[in-house]
């Protein structure tokens, strides 16, 4: 190892933490979620504040709970209850939908493109 080697390694050791701080890890935890009813955005809510949102949909009220940086459908007037069974979502790009009630939640990643998934097919 020469002095030049150490210089190169020191440069890398300084650059990497800066890059990690700037860009983070892929699929960072979401900080906000967007609740959509029909084709319109109903609300954009922070995941930092625990709260229960009562969102009116096509069939009735969907109860959406935010707690510990996560979000879920607490109850839903729909028959299948798939939205409730989907459980918690917290990562950027995660998505839960109640199709019958036309209410959906999508977790927004940190910054542009901080999503956990590239794309989702159903």
């Amino acid at each position, binding site marked *: *190892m*020469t*002095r*030049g*080697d*150490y*210089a*190169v*390694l020191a440069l*890398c050791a300084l*650059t*990497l933490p800066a*890059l*990690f701080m700037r*860009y*983070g*890890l*892929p*699929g*960072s935890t979401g900080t906000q979620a967007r609740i959509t009813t029909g084709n319109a955005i109903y609300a954009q809510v922070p995941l930092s504040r625990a709260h229960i949102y009562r969102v009116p949909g096509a069939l009735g009220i969907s109860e959406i709970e935010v707690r510990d940086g996560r979000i879920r459908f607490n109850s839903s007037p729909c028959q299948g209850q798939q939205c409730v069974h989907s459980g918690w979502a917290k990562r950027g790009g995660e998505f839960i939908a109640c199709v019958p009630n036309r209410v959906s939640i999508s977790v927004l*990643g940190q*910054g*542009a*493109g*901080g*999503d956990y998934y*590239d794309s989702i097919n159903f």
Partner: protein
Amino acid sequence: MLTIPTTRTDYRIAWLAALAISIHIMESALPSPLPGIKPGLANVVTIVVLCRFGWATAAWVSGLRVLAGSLLLGTFLSPAFALSLSGAFCALLVLAPAAWLARIAPHWAPGPIGLSVLAAWAHMAGQFWVAYALFIPHEGLFHLLPILLTVSLVFGVVSGAVADVVIKHLEAASV
């Protein structure tokens, strides 16, 4: 009949390029945990050649490896080829001043390990830029950059250490 006169250097480049291409192709058969991540063992050859025969020979060997390697793997002019070429180009671009520094100030210049890490990072940066500019112009790509550079730092050190051992053996053999 037209014959092209060949020099000793031509033969040397051909042999070394053949070696680099063989490693390149063997490596492409290895499974990779993540697409785009591979050890880059062919770069051991580039570093060894750079240290023993200079930048120009290294550039020839590296360029021929990218070209012939892509022809043999069937990726010529495909996105993989564009990434490979841009990576090799940037690595050589960075190695040029480093090799020049080694000539004027040998005590301050990076040795095989430093050169290998420099080349690995330049390679990754060049590839990344082309991937972003040409193929995936999505800012989410940048979240991969720290991880990719960490991996290439590790592989750069490993390749450099291997090159160091090879160079020491070559020196011992030629004295």
